[in-house]
């Protein structure tokens, strides 16, 4: 079997296995699995409103997935997407509430602020990795919590007077779309989906069509060979983290300027950054794969909300399925081994 075919088969098998185990869990817990999947489907596509909500959820998933995937291609594991997303969210809302500008300047400025905030937050682990050889996984985990506490403090002191949430952003900074809202019976679908798609194209272009992208991938394949070939490995590591953080910051802008229009004190993480890891892995770290995986996970997440209502099944079932899919994709070694065995038997 060609390796290309195998690379497409592995995510599909992983998803099927995840769904299979999910079904088993439903049956063992005494739930009606058929009703469960029906509720899941109806919750995502049964009504145009729900489909609008799916698009709304897919938007930050694409950007978070791109953020993780881009770093992965340079051999970096950015677990800090969550933290970069939070600082991006707050930066976008900060611009959204504190400036008074015409829309043509205000909205781009707010989006830019989110991108810059995310990029700066990701610059720290990139710099520490390049300069001090500190592993980016630990630094980004630590920076996630740092971001959470600092932004909470910022919301309490700068964005409000000791309140739990900020003001709503000015309409001139909003990504909300009356057009989409009318189309989808007032779902929260917004213009951000175009930003997400454009970013996916940008990522594909940078990695596949530019010299710099070639260097980034080369560093991911073999750092020492790249160094020997005259590439500036340290600079590429920092650049990769910064671009990754830019995507993550933009994902925060989607939440701040599109879905919610404000920011509030958080007791814990949004989860979008961690789901982004799942999206990137399932999408095999390619732009098109990320978009497809984001659509799948977005539909699952939104559809799940209908499961308790229609079938009486806790929506956490979908979280279990997503986690299992990560396990199966990560364990692709064993799936590969099975595929090879089966295809060898077929050849005999």
């Amino acid at each position, binding site marked *: 079997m060609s390796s290309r075919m195998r690379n497409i088969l592995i995510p599909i098998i992983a998803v099927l296995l995840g769904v299979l185990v999910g079904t088993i*869990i439903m049956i063992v817990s005494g739930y009606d699995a058929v009703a469960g999947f029906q509720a899941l489907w109806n919750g995502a596509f049964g009504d145009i409103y729900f489909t609008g909500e799916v698009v709304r959820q897919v938007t930050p998933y694409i950007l978070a997935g791109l953020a993780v995937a881009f770093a992965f291609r340079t051999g970096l594991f950015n677990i800090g997407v969550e933290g970069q997303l939070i600082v991006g969210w707050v930066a976008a809302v900060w611009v959204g509430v504190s400036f008074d500008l015409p829309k043509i300047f205000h909205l781009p400025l707010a989006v830019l602020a989110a991108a810059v905030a995310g990029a700066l937050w990701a610059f720290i682990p990139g710099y520490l990795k390049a300069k*001090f050889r500190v592993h980016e996984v*630990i630094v980004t*985990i*630590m920076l996630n919590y*740092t971001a959470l506490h600092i932004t909470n403090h910022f919301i309490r002191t700068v964005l409000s007077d000791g309140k739990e949430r900020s003001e709503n952003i000015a309409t001139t900074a909003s990504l909300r779309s009356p057009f989409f809202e009318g189309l989808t019976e007032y779902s929260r679908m917004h213009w951000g989906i175009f930003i997400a798609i454009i970013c996916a194209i940008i990522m594909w272009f940078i990695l596949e069509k530019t010299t710099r992208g070639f260097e980034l991938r080369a560093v991911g394949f073999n750092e020492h060979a790249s160094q020997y070939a005259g590439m500036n490995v340290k600079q590429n590591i920092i650049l990769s983290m910064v671009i990754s953080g830019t995507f993550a910051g933009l994902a925060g802008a989607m939440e701040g300027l599109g879905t919610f229009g404000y920011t509030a004190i958080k007791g*814990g993480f949004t989860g979008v950054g961690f789901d982004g890891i799942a999206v990137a892995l399932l999408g095999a770290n390619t732009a098109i794969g990320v978009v497809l995986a984001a659509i799948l996970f977005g539909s699952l997440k939104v559809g799940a909300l209908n499961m308790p209502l229609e079938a009486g099944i806790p929506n956490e079932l979908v979280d279990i399925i997503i986690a299992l899919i990560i396990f199966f994709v990560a364990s692709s070694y064993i799936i590969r081994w099975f595929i090879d065995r089966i295809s060898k038997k077929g050849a005999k």
Partner: protein
Amino acid sequence: MGLMDILLIIIPSTLLWASPLILTALGGIFSERSGVINIGLEGLMVIGAFSAIVFNLSTASVLGNWTPWVALLVAALAGALFSGIHAVASITFRADHTVSGVAINLLAVGVTLFLVKLIYDKGQTDIIQKGFSKIDVPILSDIPFIGPLFFSNTYWTSYFAIAVAIIAWFVVFKTPFGLRLRSTGEHPMAADTMGINVTKMRYIGVLLSGALGGLGGAVYAQSISSDFSHATISGQGFMALAAMIFGKWHPLGAMGAAIFFGFAQSLSIIGNSLPFLENVPNVYLLIAPYILTILALTGFIGRADAPKSIGTHYIKGSR
């Protein structure tokens, strides 16, 4: 408020917050010393907290005052069992350790909340009636000065965690088992050549981390939160991970780091009632553990180096 009064508040509170961190950080040490990265500590704590609370709620009427202790045992078993998934994925199936750890964290939250809704038909459990409660250690608390500071108004679990840390230090550095465990984390091929079963040692390391992570979660749930919901364990596992690194993968170092982080955590909660801290925003105390860990990794405060072969897969016969 005199210094003595402040210490009387801070010391027991520090030890209370530190004990789950100590236990979980020790778990991380066993796993990572064997060569398997474990960022799933958070998820293992979730499993521990959940199983302890459920066990506690359903058997408190039978076991009485022994309930929380038996629940610790149950939580350790549940944690070990759950970490088996991480072990199989990252050792046998050669999955990326970090990815598997992320999946462990997501899976733990999903599974436990699913079960809470299945069992109790609501988003969180009831409050347990038989948790760990404050005690004055007999005899020792009568010692002047030291007694009130270290042995009054405190919890048995604090001493338990410190005792486990000392045992872990002995096991890791003073026994043949510990030497073997460390060798598979440093140089698995050399270990294999000497007849050590690398796969087995790594499995043991990960399962121990599951048991200790489960204990950490159970201690937290039964002495601090008293119930289980989505917010019970929110970051303690990652803070334990930080303590492990800050303590340079050494059991006693991790214990010291965990006590220090527990100190920062308890200050961020009770700081407002202390005269010299009421004007300091608690954000500094909240982020201190994380920033210090980054600084330690960078080498500004004594460089922390991970075991050499951490995160790699040992494949027999490959060079």
